[in-house]
């Protein structure tokens, strides 16, 4: 179905983009996006563990009880309320580090929210890349639902419920004790990464 394709343009980064218009103010969208004081339903109920989001800050995205860690990353761009970007690696995978960018732009009727995934363009599409493609759609849809209605979509809530059922099956590798903030992946771990925005 709509899985990422291996073919990429000359250059060593493969990019995919996801966009949705959210009927809200840019500050409302931004504050949900970077909220660290509670789990984010649009981010699979992950909660930021970080000394404070800002350029260069390391973070872990942990489960609400803090026991498991889903994602590690480091902020590479932080310009409220328009641009936020960070490195990204699943704790359960050895796949190369990716970059996730969020771009917010005021448009008629709301805010255009764009999510950009950048991957080192290997011939094979990694499992992480496929998961991130699925995840990106989930994030766009559910961030929109959360900001506009105060809760995630029906499908999103169902998925979060299934997640909570599967929690006991989370691999040991994802235990938070294995993932101190020092292990957040650095931009230098992406060989092809450029500073281009």
């Amino acid at each position: 179905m709509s899985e990422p394709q291996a073919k990429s343009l000359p250059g060593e980064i493969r990019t995919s983009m996801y966009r949705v218009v959210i009927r809200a103010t840019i500050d409302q969208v931004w504050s949900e996006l970077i909220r660290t004081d509670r789990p984010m339903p649009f981010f699979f109920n992950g909660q930021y563990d970080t000394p404070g989001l800002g350029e260069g800050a390391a973070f872990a995205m942990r489960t609400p009880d803090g026991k498991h860690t889903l994602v590690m990353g480091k902020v590479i761009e932080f310009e409220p309320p328009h641009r936020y970007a960070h490195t990204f690696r699943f704790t359960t995978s050895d796949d190369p580090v990716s970059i996730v960018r969020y771009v917010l732009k005021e448009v008629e009727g709301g805010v255009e929210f764009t999510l950009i995934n950048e991957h080192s363009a290997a011939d094979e599409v990694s499992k992480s890349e496929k998961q991130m493609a699925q995840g990106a759609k989930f994030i766009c849809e559910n961030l929109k639902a959360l900001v506009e209605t105060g809760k995630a979509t029906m499908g999103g809530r169902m998925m979060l419920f299934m997640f909570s059922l599967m929690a006991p099956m989370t691999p040991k590798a994802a235990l938070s004790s294995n993932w101190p903030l020092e292990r957040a992946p650095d931009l230098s771990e992406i060989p092809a990464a450029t500073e281009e925005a």
Partner: protein
Amino acid sequence: MMSPDTMDAVFQALASTTRREMLDIVRNEPGCSVGAVASRFDVSRIAVMRHLTVLEEAGLIISDKRGRTRHLYMNAVPIQMIHDRWTSEYSALWSGRMLDIKYLAEQRRARDGDASEADEIAHTKGEPG
């Protein structure tokens, strides 16, 4: 979740074989240029641009201008939102299973079709099938 106007725009954009083919190309080659899309079609560049504008206004294509080139990306979110309107996690699971069976059976039919021809050739040579 999606406004009626937005959903109309998506369906209208998809109601064209040419535009669906353009979407295939952009999905398969994320970041491709307008010229790369135009080169696959036997119509004027202006006609191609018009189709791409329809896709872009429906939110199905994101065009990212860097320097003098426009890079095109497919945006799957509108299609996902339409999907979600009529499917629950539960129905998606089962309809997904059914489609898997359909694709596998059709693949197998195509393969067995070839295989039975190969069998015939093998038999005429007196080899076991």
